């Protein structure tokens, strides 16, 4: 169907179990450069677990995951991560600029105490791109939820990743903020690959290029014509685990 490019993430026959429960079963998935994939599925369907596996935070019980042809644990992996919770550790004494600079951390450069002017300029430039240049010197406590979200994306982007992984990024943003946010992702998608978990079924259909339904097993949907299709797919997954849209078991992709 699609020409085989060098895939960014390649998952084969992967299972993950915790405490005897089958959380993910026989997952096959390829993320190709330029993809904008949204993962949807019911609570407990294993969405966050899949992201954690791709990030190398946990190891698969069976099967394999390769990120850019490499073990996800290797620190050279060009993956940027935006966590679900933006309102955590708010009292921490840190400015937005310093949070962004944290994204440059590299264990190989331990012992260097200060960030160079060039790195600070880069952080400023990325904050500017996110539209929050004026927040650079403000403490994170003094920002709104949406601004904090952008700071966290900037933190993920400063290391110039090829793949951006987001876990329910819009959980703490209002409706207007969500649309803005997806527009932003769309712009970012011109340069990098995006993989995210989202519950915004309606919006997702008009932004994501393909959708993955995850409820223990995985169902892959190439594209959607309307949000109704998304909802159908969503319900089919959670109720019967069958895909009516007749799509593509992953090994054909």
């Amino acid at each position: 169907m699609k020409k085989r490019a060098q895939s960014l993430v390649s998952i084969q026959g992967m299972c993950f179990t915790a405490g005897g429960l089958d959380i993910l079963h026989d997952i096959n998935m390829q993320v190709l450069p330029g993809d904008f994939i949204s993962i949807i599925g019911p609570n407990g369907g294993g969405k966050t677990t899949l992201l954690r596996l791709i990030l190398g935070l946990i190891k698969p019980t069976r099967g394999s995951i390769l990120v850019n042809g490499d073990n996800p644990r290797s620190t050279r992996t060009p993956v940027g991560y935006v966590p679900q919770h933006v309102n955590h550790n708010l009292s921490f004494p840190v400015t937005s600029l310093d949070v962004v600079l944290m994204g440059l951390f590299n264990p190989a450069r331990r012992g260097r105490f200060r960030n160079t002017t060039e790195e600070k300029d880069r952080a400023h430039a990325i904050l500017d791109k996110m539209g929050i240049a004026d927040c650079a010197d403000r403490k994170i406590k003094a920002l709104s939820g949406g601004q904090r979200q952008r700071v966290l994306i900037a933190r993920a982007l400063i290391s110039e990743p090829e793949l951006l992984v987001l876990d329910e990024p819009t959980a703490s943003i209002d409706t207007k903020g969500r649309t803005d946010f997806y527009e932003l992702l769309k712009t970012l998608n011109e340069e990098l690959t995006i993989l995210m978990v989202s519950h915004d079924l309606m919006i997702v259909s008009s932004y994501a290029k393909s959708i993955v339904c995850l409820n223990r097993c995985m169902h892959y949907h190439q594209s959607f014509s309307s949000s109704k299709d998304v909802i159908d797919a969503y319900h089919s997954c959670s109720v019967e685990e069958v895909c009516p849209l007749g799509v593509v078991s992953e090994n054909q992709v």
Partner: protein
Amino acid sequence: MIEALGFGFMQNALLAGLLASVICGVIGSYIVVNRLVFLSGGIAHSAYGGIGMAFYFGWPYLISAAGFSLAISMVMAAVSLRNRERADTIIGVMWAIGMATGILLLDMTPGYNVDLMTYLFGNILMVPVSDIVAMIVMVAVICSVMFYFHGDLLIMSYDEEFAQVRGVPVRLLYFLMIGLVAVTVVLMVQVVGLILVIALLTIPPYIAEKYTNSLYQMMFLSTILGMIFILGGLWWSYTHDLTSGASIIFIAGFGFCLSLIIDRLINLRRKKVWERAHEISTPR
């Protein structure tokens, strides 16, 4: 007060106080931003078991207490990593068992007649030179660990999951940090005692956190605040013949309340400015 500086014990006390404020400023900041206050309280109180062992077996105090609290802190760290939701319960249990062990061992020590109060409330005026040497070593250790791992510790304190993604050895550093807390607590016992050490570890960083923009500024300001509290408490206890540990903590507590009042005043002022601005822009 000036003539008091001529006494050897007073010079030792001042030196110990200054070293203590550096240690508390740095370690206390990590404790506050990582929300380890309860865990540190558990370590401080269970250190009493180590003191009991020192007397019962006749081991040297500093080594015995430090070894015991290091061991117990490693168990607490492992528990809190494994079972995060109920970690506080288990820490509370170990806190009580550690203290009970200490008391039982002291009961069983033949001819026991040590003044318990010294360990519970400390006495900065009786800090031996060996403790000051140990504190200097500790300051050196803390500073070198902090300089080497500053990036790791900063990212990990702010966002543990992200730190893991970026390749920070989170588990290892968590154990290292808690180990440093354990040794710190034991060293502070001489200055303010087991019960009050938590106040000295948390009050200066808590105040500093609100007025600073980075972790290092926070550490610096809390060190300065710690110095003010310790020296103030020392002076107060000397002039009025009071228990030094309690005086230091009382001064720190006073500073804590003062900071809350200052916060209030700042907020009120901001509100006033806002109200005035709105009166001008909306003429009646």
